[in-house]
C-alpha cells in the first residue's frame, strides 16, 4: 500500500537534488533544468496531497504550476540566449554584474 509519506519523501529527495543542482553547477542551462526538477517534485506532492485528501485543489494547482514552469522556461531560456549574445558565456560565475 502506497502511503502519502512515500510520495512526500520522493518529492523531498527530488527537490533536494534540484537544489543541489542549482547550488553546485556552473552551467546556467543545467541550473534551469534543476529548477524544473524542483517544480516536478512540488507537483508530485501537490498531486499526492490532492489524491489522499480526495480533493481537486492540488490537481488544479499542478496545472497552474506546469503553466508557470513552461512560461519560466521560455523566458529563462530567452534571457539566457540574450545574455549569451552579449557576454559569450553561460557560466554563472562569470555573470556577476549584480555586484556593481
Amino acid at each position, binding site marked *: 500500500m502506497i502511503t502519502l509519506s512515500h510520495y512526500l519523501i520522493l518529492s523531498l529527495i527530488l527537490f533536494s537534488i534540484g*537544489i543541489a543542482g*542549482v*547550488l553546485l553547477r556552473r552551467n546556467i542551462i543545467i541550473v534551469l533544468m534543476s529548477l524544473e526538477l524542483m517544480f516536478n517534485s512540488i507537483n508530485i506532492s501537490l498531486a499526492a496531497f490532492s489524491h489522499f485528501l480526495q480533493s481537486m485543489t492540488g490537481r488544479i494547482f499542478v496545472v497552474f504550476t506546469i503553466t508557470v514552469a513552461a512560461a519560466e522556461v521560455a523566458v529563462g531560456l530567452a534571457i539566457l540566449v540574450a545574455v549569451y549574445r552579449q557576454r559569450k558565456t553561460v557560466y*554563472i560565475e562569470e555573470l*556577476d554584474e*549584480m*555586484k556593481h
Partner: protein
Amino acid sequence: MVSWLILFIPLIAAVLITFVTRKQKDLSSYVSIGAVVLCFILSIDPILTLLKDPHMKPVEQGFSWINIPGLHVEIGTLLDPLSILMLFVVTFVGSLIHIYSRGYMHGEHGYSRFFACMSLFIFSMLGIVLANNFIQIYIFWELVGLSSYLLIGYYFEKPSASDAAKKAFLVNRVGDFGFILGIFVLFQATGTFNFIEINHILEKGGIPESTIYIAALLIFCGAIGKSAQFPLHVWLPDAMEGPTPVSALIHAATMVAAGVYLLARTSLLYHFSPDAMEVVAYIGGFTALLAAVIAVAQNDIKRVIAYSTLSSLGYMVMAMGVGGMTAGMFYLTTHAFFKALLFLAAGSVIHALHTQDIWEMGDVFKKLKTTGTTFILGSLAMAGVFPFSGFWSKDEILTIAFTSHHYFLFTIGILVAFVSAFFMTRLVFVTFFGKGRYHGHPHESPSVMTVPLVILAFFAVVAGFAGMPWIEPNFGSYIAGPLHGGHGEHGFNLFVAGLSTAVVIAGIALGYIVYCKELKSDPLAKNVLYNLAHNKFYFDEFYDNIIVAKVYNGIGRICNFAEVNFIIIFFVNGFAYLTRETGKVLRLTTTGKLQHYALVMVAGVVVLVLFFGVL
C-alpha cells in the same frame, strides 16, 4: 453703548485712513482729528455723571471673546471714576495734540500714515482705560506698544529711529513678560481675569499672601516697562526719535502713564501686599532721582523733557508705592497737561529753529512769544511752583510720603523737586534767553499749533485747584471710590508745602545763577558728575554692550554653534555616516554571484524550518 462707541471710533478712523483716505492727506488728518474729538465729546457724558455722583456704581459691559471650558475671556468696558478720569485725560489731551499735529506734521512724507497710527494709538489707549479685565488690558497694553513702535519709527529711513523703535518695543516686551506671568498667577489663584471679581475674591481673603506678593510684583513689571521705571527706563529717552506730537501724547501724557494707571487699577492687590508696595515705592523713588540727575546734563531739548517725564513717572510710581493712589492719579492728570504742553511747546521751538540742541537756541523768546510764554508756564508747573498745578499734585505725594513715615523716600522726593526746578530753569534760560546762538529766522508757529498750547497752558496752571486739600469734594474724593489703600484725606501739611516750595525756589535760584548769562556752552560740563549724568550713567552702554551683545547674542551664538557643530554633525551627518559605513560593510556580502545568494536563501529556509517547523 457710549463706551463701545468711544472705544471703536478711533479704530474705525485708523482703518478708514489706511484703506480709503490714504492718498488724500488733508482728509486723513480730519478723519483722525474728528475721531478723537468725537471721543472727547462722547466722554463728556460719563464725566458729567461722575461729577453729579462721586459714588457712582461702576458700569460694566462685556461680551464673551473666548469661551471654552475653564477659560472665559471677555472684551468689555468698565466705566468707573478711574477710567472716566483717564478717558477725559486721554481724549482731551489727545484732541489737542491731534490738532497741533495737523500743523506740525505739515508737508511730511507719510502724513496719512502718521494719523492712522495716532488713531490706532488712541484706540489702544482707550482700550487700556476701559478694560474690565486683565487679558483685555494686556491686549491693549501690547497694542499701545505697537503704535508706539510705529510712531517712534515714523522716520524709518533714519537708523536711529528704527533702532529706537525696536528698542522701545523689546524693552517693553521684557516688562510685559512679567506682566503676563502676573496675570497667569492671578488667574491661577482666582480663575477669572475680571477686575471686579478679582477684587471681590481679594476682599474675601481668597488668595494666599505670598501669591498676592508674587502677582503684585510681576504685574508691576508691566508698569516698569511701560512707565519706563528703572531698570527698564532706557527706551523712553530714545523714543524721542519720533515726531514731537508723538512724544507729547504717547511718551509723556498718556501711554507711559498707563503703568501708573495699571497700579491704580490693581491697587487692591497692592493694598494686601505691603511688601510689594515698598518695592514699588523704592523703584519709583530711585527712578525719579536718577532721571532728574540725568536731565540736568542733557542738551537735546526733547531729551531733557523726556528725562523729566521719567522723573515724574518715578514720582507717580513712588506715590503709588507709599499708598498715595489718589495722589498718584492726581499727579498723572496734571502731569499730562503740563508735560504735553512742554513737549508741544518744545515742538514749536524745534519747528521754528530746525534743531533740537538747546545750545543752538537762545534768545528766541522775543520771536516766539506764545510758545515761550506757554513753555515757561509749563515749566513752572513742572517745577511745582505755587500755585501751578504741579505744586498741588507734588505736594500731595510728598505729604503722603511724610505722613506714612517714608522719610527716606520723602527726602528723595524733596531732592527731586530741587533738581527738577534746577533743570527746568536751565532749560528755560538756555532755550529762550541769554545769547542767541540760532541760525535762520525763526517765527511763531501757525495758530493750529499755538491754540492747543494756550489751552493746555490754561489747564497746566489751573488743574491743580481741583485737588486742593481743603475743597470738598476735591479730585481725590471723586476717584477714591475704586482705589484702595490711599483714601483722599491727607490734609495739607504746612511743613511739607513750605519745604517743597523752599527747595523749588532754591533750585530756580541756582539755575538762574548758573544759566542766566550769555553762555556758549554748559558751564558745568567739566564736572565728573555732569559727565556721568550726560552719559546717562552708561546704562545704554551696559545694556547694549554687555546684556545684549555679550549675554543675549552670546547665548544665540553658543546655540548656533551647537546647532552647526553638534546637531547637524552628530544627529544628521552622524546618522548619514553610520548608514554609509554600515553599507560599506554590508556591501561585501553582495558578491554578484547568483549561487551565493541561492545558497544563503536555502540556508535561511533551513534555519526557518528548523525554528518554526520542527522545534
